[in-house]
């Protein structure tokens, strides 16, 4: 049964947990082969068990997990996963299998310069002597087309962008010459520009080094762009395994179809007229903010949000868009400029007057679950702002909270559950209900859908849109995701290094933008989209 072409072979992988004497299955007998020099993508939504696969084949699951099944790497004798010992795993990790994670910056030591971390790793694995190691590192980085590798090596991880950290991690793992590289959502936390760089690097090492890669993602476009073969995972079982061309042009399984459908967002530009930009709700003038004297985060930010308008703020990570939202709601203090609500400067308000402003401006956070107090039920959470701001008489609060929860689709028994018992989508719904119950004029969504699966993104956006039409508040939508903003916003302000470089219309107008920075962002997106749609449309041709 030996096959020289197969790099990794997994058969009958089962993983389950026992919690409160109840067994929950994460993976139900997964089998797949990864060929030599192939990039195999595991595609699935959150909770499908895709990260568990990566952890199971590197022995990183917690001891409470029960696992069974077999795997073999590079045609060696099959290793039974249930009896693998610590020394088995040590011989696999690093030498045979290298892994990179979603948050690259966290896997690097923040207090040590990249060069030393790199060198230590090589010396530890006896791949170079202390003297000669710098040369090896530089050669590797040059081979991988890093611009300015000396600067990168001489930096601390926090001085580099998230994308650069991820590329450094990939370069480090490649140096070990592993048989297999596992990339667990390496681009999910990155903006489009960094994402393109990381994907290009993976492509490069696959082609140039013949590296076998197991790539894990929830993003169907990314999967279509990079992979040789795609394995679709749903609730711990493989539903389909195909080349991306065949998979996306002719999905056989209904789950795959639903994943493809989920990419089509509600688009506000189809049949609804844009609101008249007459009465501004929020006006931001010459806003400036710096955390330390020589590194301004915001410089001269000027923008207005009008009534009933959905305004998008687009930018790469680190451009200052989150800081802007935090300044508006008063979580950060800006040093210069003014923020006018209803003609009144609200910057630097304190005490009762700042709390008064909470009735008019509300914020939804990226990590909805973290923004809810885990000790309270959904009902109590939605009651919170009413209690703080004393908007409605105490007797009517319950009723109002119930109706708002119903409005966002949290009904019946779910209203009495606490955040740990709610799904991610439900948490975001509760957070939306909590923000809207005070009837704000402006709702700021700080990457509110960025951490969600495609299908959830669509649902939440649809919900926001429906509530927006019903209540008529203005939305300030902050995101690095062009697709979301393009289909959802009336106007899009593009932010670059703490300034707006362009404000243009949403929908197709964004595509016509001529500003070089917007063009750069668009081109990254376009590449992915093109590769995706080219595969989708194969069947149509």
């Amino acid at each position, binding site marked *: 049964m030996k096959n020289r072409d197969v790099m990794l072979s997994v058969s009958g992988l089962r993983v389950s947990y026992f919690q409160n004497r109840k067994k929950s299955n994460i993976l139900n007998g997964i089998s797949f082969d990864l060929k030599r020099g192939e990039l195999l993508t595991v595609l699935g939504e959150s909770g499908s068990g895709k990260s568990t696969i990566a952890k199971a084949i590197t022995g990183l699951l917690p*001891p*409470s997990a029960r696992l069974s099944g077999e795997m073999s790497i590079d045609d060696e004798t099959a290793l039974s996963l249930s009896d693998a010992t610590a020394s088995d795993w040590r011989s696999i990790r690093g030498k045979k299998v290298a892994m990179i994670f979603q948050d690259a910056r966290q896997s690097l030591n923040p207090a040590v310069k990249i060069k030393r971390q790199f060198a230590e790793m090589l010396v530890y694995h006896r791949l170079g002597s202390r003297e000669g190691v710098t040369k090896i590192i530089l050669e590797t980085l040059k081979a991988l087309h890093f611009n300015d590798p000396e600067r990168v090596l001489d930096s601390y991880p926090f001085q580099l962008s998230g994308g650069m950290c991820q590329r450094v991690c990939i370069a480090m793992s490649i140096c070990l010459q592993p048989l297999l590289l596992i990339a667990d959502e390496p681009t999910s936390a990155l903006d489009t520009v960094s994402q393109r760089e990381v994907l290009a690097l993976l492509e490069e090492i696959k082609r140039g080094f013949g590296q076998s890669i197991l790539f894990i993602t929830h993003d169907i476009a990314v999967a279509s762009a990079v992979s040789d073969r795609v394995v679709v995972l749903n609730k711990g079982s493989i539903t389909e395994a195909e080349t991306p061309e065949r998979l996306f042009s002719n999905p056989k399984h209904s789950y795959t179809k639903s994943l493809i459908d989920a990419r089509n967002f509600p688009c506000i530009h189809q049949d609804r007229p844009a609101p008249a930009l007459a009465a501004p709700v929020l006006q931001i003038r010459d806003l400036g903010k710096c955390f330390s004297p020589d590194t301004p985060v915001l410089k001269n930010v000027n923008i207005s949000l009008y009534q009933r308008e959905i305004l998008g703020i687009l930018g790469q990570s680190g451009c200052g868009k989150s800081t802007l939202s935090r300044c508006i*709601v*008063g*979580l950060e203090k800006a040093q210069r400029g003014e923020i006018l609500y209803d003609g009144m400067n609200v910057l630097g308000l304190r005490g009762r007057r700042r*709390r*008064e402003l*909470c*009735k008019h401006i*509300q*914020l939804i*956070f990226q*990590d909805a679950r*973290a*923004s*809810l*107090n*885990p*000790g309270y039920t959904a009902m109590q959470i939605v009651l*919170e*702002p009413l209690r*703080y*701001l004393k908007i409605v008489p105490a007797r009517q609060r319950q009723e109002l909270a119930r109706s708002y929860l119903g409005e966002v689709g949290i009904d019946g028994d779910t209203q009495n559950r606490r955040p740990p018992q709610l799904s991610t989508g439900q948490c975001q719904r509760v*957070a939306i209900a*909590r*923000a809207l119950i*005070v009837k704000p004029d402006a709702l700021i969504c700080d990457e509110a859908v960025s951490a969600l699966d495609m299908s959830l993104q669509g649902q939440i956006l649809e919900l926001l849109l429906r509530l927006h039409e019903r209540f008529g508040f203005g939305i300030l939508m902050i995101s690095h995701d062009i697709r979301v903003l393009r289909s959802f916003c009336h106007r899009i302000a593009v932010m670059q290094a703490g300034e707006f470089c362009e404000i243009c219309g949403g929908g197709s107008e964004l595509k016509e933008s001529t500003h070089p920075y917007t063009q750069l962002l668009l081109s990254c997106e376009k590449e992915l989209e093109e590769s995706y749609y080219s595969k989708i449309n194969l069947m149509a041709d």
Partner: protein
Amino acid sequence: MRQRRAEHWKISLISGFALLCGIVFCVAGASLLSGYSPSEQDAAARLVPPSREHPMGTDAFGRDVLSRTLYGGRTTLISTTVVLTVALLTGITVGLLTGINHDTVIDVVFMRLIDVLMSFPFIILAMVVIALFGASLLHLLAVVAAVWWVPFARLTRSIVLQKKSDTAVEAARVLGAKTSAIAIRELLPKVVAPVLIQATFELGNLVLSISALSFLGLGAQPPTPEWGSMLADGRAHFFESPHVLMGPAIFMIATVLALNMIGEGLRDWLDPFEIIRM
């Protein structure tokens, strides 16, 4: 491996609780368990070794050691509980106050006060206060309470500093919560478990410290029975009749042991680091 750890905390917690309940029961039911009054002197029966009438013997004044130990336990246990409650409330309040108002005048003033209290030998401070105001149990408790809130305040403050930039706390601010509401509804629940765990350990220490000060004659005054002062009284007769020390010593060891076991069990069960991270 995991299973064994889980068992470990259960055993520790349950046996600690059982032991503490036993002690509290004995001390509370002192009049039932012993037929003698704690201050009743019997000149004819001085330093009698343990016998049927006096299970733990009598002391130099012919008083029954068992009944003095049990009644003395009331003084010791009640005073430690009172001191701990005061210290806990003060500590948590100061911790929340300084943590929320980090780097303001309040924070600086309290932290410097804490530095002073930490660097001042506790026994010396107690002696100075007692010398100024006179020896009495009340004065002693006041001094202990005035010092003992410090560890709770520091722990609370460090948790608050860590937690106050949490998304949930920021969300409450955006929703219009007053600072006091944030402190009580968002931060306090995260502080309680770790502080309670520390409190069980401190309680053991507190029993020892109050007894130590009473041993030095700074606390409960004769004829009030108290474990520490009983040890001090028995010291003179230690070599000819060691039984005089047995009662308070055994009870004191058992109490501190029980409290430490409870603390150990609670810590493994609730794992403060897990809680802090939550």
